[in-house]
């Protein structure tokens, strides 16, 4: 009987596990292997260099900068998206009129790709010349055109990068929050009303937010994982035929140019990727600890 079950287990899980092993674990181990070699323009290197690539990457100011950029970006975008999508969900949930309309409008951008969104942002809203939308609006108030993506002081490019991500993602997380809000037992609110609590801040703080705890944990984890993978909007907004500017350059973009560009330094790129993975693992595990992930009830 047990052997029978084991067999069935592998019938169900086997295909997925094999694929994952082939397309995730094999490349992963290969990459770790490459990082110990001098691998210029080759994936089957012969010149073993030990930890040289790691030392070189950690000494590389540009890589350290990119890690800083990425931590800063994560620390900023995660709470902002969280707050914004929660606010949207609370407002849409309370509105009585045209609720489906609002939900659709905020959710619709989730269907757009970063490529399309970056294009609209770069070429139409935030281009640096007089016929860009943002500059047109500025012009109505007598302002001079601003080169949004090229100005480093003040760093206006962050405005472009952050708004693009908010537009694309807020709706999806709003839906998650809306689902969470639907699940809250109305009796809780009634009891609060009987106790004399006024709708508003008190109820939000003592009933809504605690009840949303499960959703919040999921949203935060998804947000952090997504921020780690940030590549598309940076690449499409800021790169040009000659490369990428030395600011707002997250590690994935930097490694892309190191390993996959004409540079083709695959050993160094792999070492950087391994370092990045370690940073991500540490951050995620710390976050899970902090949110006490294990404690949430897995009621689904």
């Amino acid at each position, binding site marked *: 009987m047990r052997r029978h079950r084991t067999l069935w287990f592998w019938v169900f899980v086997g295909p997925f596990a094999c694929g994952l092993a082939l397309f995730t674990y094999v490349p992963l181990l290969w990459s770790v292997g490459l990082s110990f070699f001098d691998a210029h*323009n080759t994936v089957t290197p012969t010149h073993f260099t030990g930890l040289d690539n790691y030392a070189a990457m950690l000494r590389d100011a540009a890589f350290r900068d990119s890690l800083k950029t990425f931590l800063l970006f994560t620390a900023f975008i995660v709470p902002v998206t969280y707050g914004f999508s929660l606010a949207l969900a609370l407002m849409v949930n309370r509105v009585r009129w045209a609720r489906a309309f609002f939900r659709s409008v905020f959710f619709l951008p989730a269907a757009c790709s970063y490529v399309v969104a970056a294009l609209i942002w770069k070429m139409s809203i935030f281009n640096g010349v007089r016929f860009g939308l943002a500059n047109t609006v500025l012009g109505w108030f007598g302002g001079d055109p601003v080169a949004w993506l*090229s100005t480093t002081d003040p760093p206006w490019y962050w405005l472009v990068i952050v708004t693009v991500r908010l537009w694309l993602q807020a709706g999806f997380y709003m839906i998650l929050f809306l689902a969470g809000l639907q699940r809250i037992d109305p009796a809780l609110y009634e009891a609060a009303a009987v106790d004399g609590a006024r709708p508003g801040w008190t109820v939000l703080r003592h009933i809504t937010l605690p009840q949303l705890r499960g959703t919040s944990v999921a949203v935060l984890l998804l947000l952090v994982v997504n921020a780690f993978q940030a590549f598309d909007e940076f690449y499409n907004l800021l790169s*040009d035929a000659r490369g990428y500017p030395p*600011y707002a350059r997250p590690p994935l973009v930097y490694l892309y140019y190191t390993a996959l560009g004409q540079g083709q330094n695959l050993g160094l790129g792999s070492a950087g990727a391994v370092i990045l993975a370690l940073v991500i693992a540490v951050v995620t595990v710390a976050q899970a600890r902090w949110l006490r992930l294990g404690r949430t009830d897995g009621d689904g």
Partner: protein
Amino acid sequence: MTISRRTLLAAGAGAGLLTACGSNTGRGGGGSGPRLSQWYHQYGEPGTERAVQRYAAAFRKADVSVQWRPGNYDQQTAAALLTDSGPDVFEVDGPTLDQIRGGQVLDLTDLLAGVKDDFNPAVLAPKTHEGRIYGIPQVIDTQLLYYRKSLLRDAGVEPPTTLDALVDAARALTDRKTKGLFLGNDGGAGVLGGTPLYAAGFPLVTDDGRVGFDDPAAARTLGKLHRLYADKSLLLGAPADWSDPSAFLQGLTAMQWSGLWALPQIKRELGDDFGVLPFPADGDRGRPAVPVGAYGAAVSARSRHKDLAKAYVKWLWVERTDYQKDFALSYGFHIPARRSLATEAAALREGPAADVVRFTTDHGYAQPLLWTPAGQTAYQDALSRIIKGGADPERELRAAVRKVAEEIARVGA
């Protein structure tokens, strides 16, 4: 239940479809003669693609399929060379030293036997490593400064011949609607590259293989570029970048740094109301500079028909001078890589075009082979920080010098 079965069926059909589409990559066996695949990057000018296909079809010994590849061409070829699914023959803005050292491209020296001296030495040099040639230059491209004569006249500005004059002119030409100068949306760090250094009399890498710009005067020159930015004379954030003359033609800027390829379009739209200049000189040792470069034809070491691929390159880029001339002059606007063809070309004998040919002969410089991508990135980052961030040029340049020196040491070993 019905859903699940339909799902399975659809998945099966999908898999069948995939297998059917799978092998359709435009290369591989089948057909009569041996097949070669040849890659070009996307040229903007209409007609070029058809022309190169016509040349390929005229080659009798093999069935050459041409692939026209928009997008990030250098990265595509670099990645494709790691695998067996890359091209046999490809044009490349290189090959890079690491591609040569890694044995990814074949030695083509013997293809040029007897005609080597006819090729422009400035663009042949960066294709040569330890006396061997790894790429056959196809055409010469260059970049230059376009200026609008009428706008300069109205502002009472002379065409600038020194970097200081350029900075002043850009400021004088800037008003609420029009900027003085366009050096690309990144402020110039990308497209200018080593040009300002050459204009100040410093090479990127010296002939004896040392960093050429380890000098306070070089830092001073780069610092002047920051003034352009700080004066708000630079156009930034245009929808089309420096390679496209749109910003110049739309009147967003009075001067623009762009490629030779933009000249016909500018001439068509502005008539005589424009002029061309090299990058102006700076300092006592300085002289004007324009970058020259050439896409070269190279043969992949992973090609399954190496000799045939070499024979094809020799046929097209050495023997068929009629095609070479057609390619350089009939579609876009390039200077032929062979001196005998360049002197014949009527289109290059008068007006701004003649000026440009003179610039390339008198002031042209080509990026040396020792200027590796990693070194270039370090320098470009430094230049960007100097121009836009107002960073201390000497400190930034020191860091770049260190990185470039490391790279030279690595590849020289």
